[in-house]
């Protein structure tokens, strides 16, 4: 039964993607009929036509959103909606940058320390809405929205008032030390010319760890149980308050690590001082929904979103704004929001088919008996 349901979930995700692409196609057609099909084709095949560099670029785009997707998905599995990934992401990035700029003495271990610092910072920042939820019964969505903005303004404040971190002329954070960048781990050689680095491998490891924790450990089972039914898990003797806080903190740690991966990628990314939330946080929600919150699903969903994002990048060669990709993603989310409905619809369809099959068999049997 479980297998069957997963299968239907996968179908409803495909359905959402299909509708999203369809709407994208229609918008392209309306806005510029002459180039619409070429544009659509570019979205679908853009990265592949640029060889290994294009593929490497997809992995590079995918790395941070796999992490935020994993973060949101993990929280979903434990019954929490972590809309605070954007705040955790930037707090993690900030911690990474501080180590990246000030930790030159660490030498070749600098990037590892920077990643750890980001993970811890994200862990603590993510715990805040968890504590609010567990101790004060505050809805985590609202608490997360608040911590998103507080985190963003806090990082802007800390960066822009620290002369050692702030490049005043360009209005962004200073360059990190070379040793703070995540090494290529061979991937940069394999996908030459792209910005891919070892961060992608770390993201894969994170996917594997979250998978094992959720599916194979008592700890993960307890967290999930608290998500299914808080009262029942309490009745079964689990510490449901601790579980909520730990779930949010782990989710925060994943997002924070994602933030470090983006800003330590060595691709020239800096924390820009502007009053805008990190887009990777919101994209994490898309990735988690599309991947049905399952770690493996999140991995593929992240790659998919990164793929069409890279495709959208090549769309600039034609006369199209790249925002079409965001529109497609939004439509995909909208339709995956009522995946429940699609699932029930598919289930009914299946039941009907089974029933008619049975009815047919019966009439056949009836026929032979006569």
């Amino acid at each position: 039964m479980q297998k069957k349901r997963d299968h239907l979930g996968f179908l409803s995700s495909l359905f959402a993607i299909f509708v999203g692409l369809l709407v994208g196609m229609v918008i392209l057609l309306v806005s510029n009929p002459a180039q619409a099909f070429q544009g659509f084709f570019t979205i679908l095949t853009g990265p592949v036509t640029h060889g290994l560099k294009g593929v490497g670029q997809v992995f590079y785009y995918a790395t941070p959103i796999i992490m935020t997707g994993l973060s949101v998905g993990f929280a979903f599995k434990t019954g929490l909606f972590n809309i605070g990934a954007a705040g955790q992401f930037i707090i993690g990035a900030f911690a990474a940058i501080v180590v990246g700029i000030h930790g030159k003495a660490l030498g070749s271990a600098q990037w590892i320390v920077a990643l750890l610092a980001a993970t811890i910072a994200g862990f603590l920042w993510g715990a805040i809405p968890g504590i609010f939820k567990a101790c004060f019964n505050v809805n985590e969505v609202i608490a997360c929205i608040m911590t998103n903005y507080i985190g963003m303004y806090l990082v802007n404040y800390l960066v822009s008032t620290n002369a050692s971190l702030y490049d005043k002329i360009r209005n962004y954070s200073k360059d990190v030390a070379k040793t703070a960048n995540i090494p290529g781990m061979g991937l940069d050689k394999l996908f030459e010319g792209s910005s891919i680095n070892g961060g992608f491998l770390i993201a894969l490891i994170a996917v594997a760890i979250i998978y094992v924790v959720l599916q194979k450990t008592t700890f993960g089972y307890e967290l999930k149980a608290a998500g299914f039914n808080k009262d029942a898990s309490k009745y079964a003797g689990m510490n449901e308050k601790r579980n909520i806080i730990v779930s949010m903190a782990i989710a925060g740690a994943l997002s924070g690590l994602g933030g470090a991966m983006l800003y330590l990628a060595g691709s020239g990314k800096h924390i820009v001082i502007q009053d805008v939330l990190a887009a990777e946080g919101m994209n994490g929600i898309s990735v988690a929904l599309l991947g049905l919150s399952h770690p493996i699903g999140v991995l593929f969903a992240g790659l998919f979103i990164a793929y069409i994002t890279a495709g959208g990048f090549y769309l600039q060669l034609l006369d199209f704004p790249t925002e079409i990709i965001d529109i497609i993603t939004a439509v995909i989310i909208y339709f995956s929001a009522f995946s429940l409905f699609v699932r029930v619809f598919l289930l009914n369809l299946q039941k009907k088919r089974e029933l008619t099959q049975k009815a047919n068999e019966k009439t056949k049997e009836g026929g032979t008996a006569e």
Partner: protein
Amino acid sequence: MNTLYMVIQQAMFFTIPLLLVALGGMFSERSGIINIALEGIMIMGAFTGILFIHLTTGKLSGQLQLILAIVISVSTGIVFSLLHAFASINLKADQTISGTALNMFAPAFAIFVARRITGTQQIQFTNTFRIASVPVLGDIPVIGNMFFQNTYITTYLGFIILIVSIVVLFYTRFGLRLRSCGEHPQAADSVGINVYHMQYAGVIISGALAGLGGLVFVVPTSTNFNASVAGYGFLALAVLIFGQWHPVKIFGASVFFGLMKTIAATYSAIPVLSTSGIPSYVYKMVPYLATLAVLMFTSKNSQAPKAEGIPYDKGAR
């Protein structure tokens, strides 16, 4: 004294959109539907309204143009919010996710269309709507300076909507029914109220007010629209909670938040604050920190509608 007048006039520009959008959110949540899409609806409302002003510049100007833009923004907000209503009421989708989708859609759509039409992401507009001084009222000493000079008709519209909201929510049959749907929809249904209709009404009102709020936010504070309302939709959610889902308290909360935003935006022009050394980021953070604090202290007897966020299922027991 002039500084005080300036601060109060500026504070109105920040307060009124917060008030409108938070009131919109109130109607939706009171009917039982969480509307996290306020930010997206604001963007869509501001987008069509400003686009209208941009396209009709030269042909129209002044208050007539603004009123037509208001009508367009409100209609856009209603249409856009219907997507949320359909997903969360008819299809019983997760309301937070549906709202998130709309929030992602709006800025992307606004930028896409703006670039197709005007070639750039930003839409410029000429502001011909400012009222330097309201006749007669603007000449009143002190009060005239504070509330009737350097103002917009939208400010007064905001106050009218506040009063109408109070009356509708607490003194009409519709308001009572709407509230009952947010508290206990099964009970409401059992006495013959159509819960789905009420929830549609709640979401539509929130769409109308959020669409209007988007336009009202952009017109006095900018001369171009860049597919963003600077997180005001989310701030309005904070106002809604800070105001505990009650229109009068929402007004108080929006004045407080509006004042904080004003100080953050203009503090360098205020002598007392610019020498105090407190960075503007502190004022930017205060509304969110204050909301967290309020959440912490009121969670035991929160006034949040009991049934909000739960899709209404007729057959549920």
